[in-house]
Structure formats: structure tokens, C-alpha cells
């Protein structure tokens, strides 16, 4: 673990990503303490341009709400949804993939057809339909993102398990009479972890993009402010007030970029052989 961290720190991209993400996490955790005012509250007159009033440094929107406060509170929603939906996707994808790879045969066939089905269906369209039908809320958004993003996890884990299953130490575990569950959880999965970690960091990025796209279309949780919602709300007045759409968009861009950089950095750190060749 220490070695991985050190390799990460040597990778300039990964380092930048880590710094941006740390800032975003700090904003999400501590921001609301510094900024106790609700982002829904009217802070000033509408359409205050940015960098003109010290109380609202990034300006106000069409209803006089503070754009900076929105970005600070929105960080919570974006990061939380990204993290939780990825964890949910992992709890579906990892066991399914492990079972398919370990048991093979019919089980593998059936599970992989099931996975393929979810990979064929256009994911964003399915997410829209799911959230619309289940009614927009933080729970339905997390569920929809998890449902459309678990298939790559299952496929990856299956591939890893398939190749690890025939290793001698796994066969030794079989000979000593360990149960299948024990072998999968204790012998195989820990060794399949590193590609899953890389994929997971990229999935958090995709989940943030998905959440912002859903909120942009008006499918966000109506009680929580989010970056996508802010861009969507500022869209109609973009000609008068560019800042309402520009700043939240930059926030999304930076967080997603940071996570992608971390994913690549992790990939290089965990697979040093590939990294050297790729550059």
C-alpha cells in the first residue's frame, strides 16, 4: 500500500488529481460549516455579476441565490452520489462476476447473458427512465446509476477470477477442503483487487457526470442543490448571466478530471509494467 502511494505521488497527473480531489472533499465536508446559509436562500438581488460584491464572490442567480454557496453545498451531493452509487455497483458486480468466473459453465453463461443485456441497453436512457418512473430523489438517482454501471465490474472480475482460478494456491485451497465462499473471498478476490480499484475510481467520475446530467435534465433530488441542477437552472438566462452556468460546470469538470487522473495514476502505480510501455 505504501509502495502504491509512493508511486502515485511520483506520477504528476495522479498527484494533481489527488490535490484537486482533496480540496473538493474538504469543501464538501467543511464548506457548509463556514457557509451556514442555505444555498436556496436569497442572498442578494438577482443577477449580481461575479467578483463585484465581496459577500457573493461568484455572483447570484436569477432568484438572487449565492452561486458560491450552491457550489459548496453541491459538492456534497456530487461526491456522495459518485461514491455511494459506485459502492452499490461494486456490491452487485463483484459477486456476480466472481460467481460467473469461479463456477463457469451454465452459471457463467446465464450471468454473462444477463450482464450483456444491461450492457446493450443505452445506459443514460435507462437511467433517465428509471429515475423518472421511481420519482427523482437521491435514492432513485443512486439506484439508477448503480443499475447502469455494474456490468463492467462483473465482466472485469469474471476475467480476473477465470485466470486466478487455475493457480496452484487456489487448487491447494480446494484440496484442503475449503468452502467455495472462503476460496473466492479469501484466496481469489484479494488478488483481483487492483484492477477493480482502478475501475472504481473511474466509475466514481462517470457517476458524477451521470448525476449532473440527470440533475441538468430536471431529474435531481428536488431538496438538494447540485451542480447539474445549477447549470440547468442557469441555462435559460445564459445570455444575461453566463456565470450561473460557467462556475458549476467548472466544478464538475475539475472533480471528474481529478478522478480520471487518479484512476490513471493508480493504474500506473498498480501495473508498473504497463505504465512504462505506455509512455
Amino acid at each position, binding site marked *: 500500500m505504501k509502495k502504491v502511494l509512493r508511486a502515485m505521488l511520483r506520477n504528476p497527473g495522479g498527484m494533481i488529481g489527488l490535490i484537486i480531489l482533496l480540496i473538493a472533499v474538504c469543501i464538501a465536508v467543511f464548506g457548509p460549516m463556514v457557509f451556514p446559509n442555505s444555498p436556496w436562500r436569497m442572498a442578494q438581488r438577482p443577477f449580481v455579476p461575479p467578483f463585484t460584491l465581496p459577500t457573493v464572490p461568484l455572483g447570484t442567480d436569477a432568484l438572487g441565490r449565492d452561486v458560491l454557496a450552491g457550489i459548496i453545498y453541491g459538492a456534497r451531493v456530487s461526491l456522495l452520489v459518485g461514491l455511494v452509487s459506485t459502492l452499490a455497483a461494486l456490491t452487485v458486480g463483484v459477486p456476480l462476476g466472481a460467481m460467473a468466473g469461479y463456477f463457469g459453465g451454465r452459471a457463467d453463461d446465464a450471468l454473462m447473458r444477463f450482464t*450483456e*443485456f444491461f450492457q*446493450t*441497453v*443505452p*445506459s*443514460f*436512457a*435507462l437511467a*433517465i*427512465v*428509471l429515475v*423518472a*418512473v*421511481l*420519482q427523482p430523489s437521491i435514492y432513485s438517482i443512486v439506484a439508477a446509476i448503480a443499475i447502469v454501471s455494474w456490468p463492467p465490474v462483473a465482466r472485469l472480475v469474471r476475467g480476473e477470477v477465470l485466470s486466478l482460478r487455475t493457480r496452484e494456491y487456489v487448487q491447494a485451497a480446494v484440496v484442503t477442503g475449503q468452502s467455495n465462499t472462503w476460496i473466492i473471498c479469501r484466496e481469489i478476490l484479494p488478488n483481483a483487487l487492483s484492477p477493480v480499484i482502478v475501475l472504481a475510481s473511474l466509475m466514481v*467520475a462517470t457517476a458524477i*457526470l451521470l448525476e*449532473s*446530467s440527470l440533475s*441538468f*435534465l*430536471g*431529474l435531481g433530488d428536488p431538496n438538494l442543490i447540485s451542480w*447539474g441542477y445549477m*447549470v*440547468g437552472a442557469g*441555462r435559460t438566462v*445564459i*445570455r444575461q448571466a*453566463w456565470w450561473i*452556468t*460557467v462556475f458549476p*460546470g467548472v466544478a*464538475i*469538470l475539475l472533480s*471528474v*478530471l481529478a478522478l*480520471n*487522473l487518479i484512476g490513471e495514476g493508480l493504474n500506473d502505480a498498480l501495473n508498473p509494467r504497463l505504465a512504462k*510501455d*505506455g*509512455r
Partner: protein
Amino acid sequence: MLSFIAQRIVKGVIVLLAIIVLNFFLIRLAPGDPAVVMAGEAGASDQIFVQQLREKFGLDRPLPEQLFLYVKGILSFDLGFSFRQQMPVSTLILERLPATLLLTGTAFVISLVLGIFFGALAARWAGTWADTLITVLALIFYATPLFWVALMAILLFSVALDWLPSFGYETVGANYMGFAHILDVAAHLILPALTIGLFFMATYARMTRASMLEVKRLDFVKTARAKGLGDNLIQRRHVLRNALLPVVTLAGLQAGTLIGGAVLTETVFAWPGIGRLMYDALLQRDYNLLLGVFVVCSAMVLVFNLVTDLIYRLVDPRIEFAS
């Protein structure tokens, strides 16, 4: 070959049926009794009318029978009725389909051509400033939300520079004919197509670059170099050609994502395609229309995947037909 095609078509039909069944249950998950919702949408809600609707749409029958009727209906392209728009869902979708095909098709070609071009450029000059610039830009565009790119494009090219129109399919009321009409549509197409294209361009550029650097190390490239072939020729004929296969594979799998991109882009640019239709259905909570668009999108993705699958088999003889 024929048996392979037949196999793939059968598989596609099974997936399509599964999607239709999923859709059926999603409609039933939608809030409210469908008959009451429909009655409300039609502007009346007395008991007799609701009962009539139930009978008309078979909602009073047992669930398996309803499912059977639903599947039968969809297979004859009856996707239900949109009470909000007072039109059959299939008519609405067919009306909007050409615009979406034009938009996604253009975006697909732009992104593939430019993506491969820039990716090859970056791989060719790996380690130089050109490579760094392309890699960084690709990384940024890959992380930018599509709807935001669309809005920034409008801010820059329509509001600030006033070069291109920011919404719609053609200039309303201009009634251009012939070539002038084509030019008018093209001007409206540029921004939305580039918006979708940019994200995919970034994807393909990254993939092409990585794939080319990988192929470059293979033995046959050394052989070509030993034969005394020029560097440009090796890059083009030997490296790029072999590196393209994974890129094309990836592109073939992007159809679904392309549709997702179309929903966001068409919404921002008011492009009259099925993506915008989906957004309108969403705003009005028109579930019949929403799910109809979803089924059609899924079917389109299926067909696209099938076609790309066949093309591979033709392009790359190493892939066996039997598998």
C-alpha cells in the same frame, strides 16, 4: 456466414424481447393507476371513462395476458398513445428519427475521423509538446459534461461571436429551398454535432494513441524497419492499420452512449430529434412516450451492434465466423 448472421439476429431478438418486458414492468412501476393517469392526461377522470380506458387497453385483464398484448403491440410497432400530444407514440418518434440520425451520424463520423487523426498524431510525436497538448486536451474533454460543452459553445459561437445559430434545425420562417436549405441545416448542425463529437473524439484519440504505442513495439514493425521502409510508411501502413481494430471495436460499442449524448445535446440546442422528444416527455411526465422512445433507442443500439459485428467479420478475417 449465414448461420452466423442468423445466430446474431436470434440473439438480438431475444434481447429486444427482454427490453420490451422490462419496459412493460417499468410502465407499471410508474406512479398512479395507468388508466387514471391516462384519463387525467385526456382531461377527464370520471369513473365510467376510467373503466372504458381499462377495458380498451386491457388493464382489467391478468398480468401475463397484459404482457402478451403489450409485446404483440410493440412487435407491430404500436407503442401506445401519447395523450399529451394527442398522437400515437410511434408517429411522434418516426417524425423525429431522421433529425437524430443526422445529428448522431455526423457526430460519429467527425469524432472517429478527428479522434483517430489526433491520436495518431500524438503517437507519432510521442513525448513532444504536440503529444502533451493533445493528451491534455483529450483528458479535459473526456471529463467535461456534454450539456456544459453545449452551453459553452453557445456562449462562445452564438452569443459572443455571433457566427452560428444556437438552436433549432433550420431558420424559422426563412423557407429556404434547395441548396440554401441544405446550407441552413448544416449551419444549425455544426454546434450540436461538434458538441457530441468532442467527447467521443477525446475517447478515440486516447485509444488510438495507446493502441498505436502498443503496436509499435511488436516484432513485425521491427521487421518493416529492417526492410528499410520509411518511418511515415511504417506508421501509416503497419502501425495505424493494426492499431485501429480496438478503436473500431470501441466505436461500435458507443452507440448507446451516443444516444445518451443526443438527449443532452438536443435538449440544449432544441434539435427536433428523439432526444429532445424524450426530454419533453420527461417534463410532461408522459410515460407512454418516454418508454416508447426508450424501446426505440434500445432497438437502434441493437441494430447498430449487429451491423458493426458483421463489419468486423468482414474487415478482420482473423475473427472466426463459427464462434
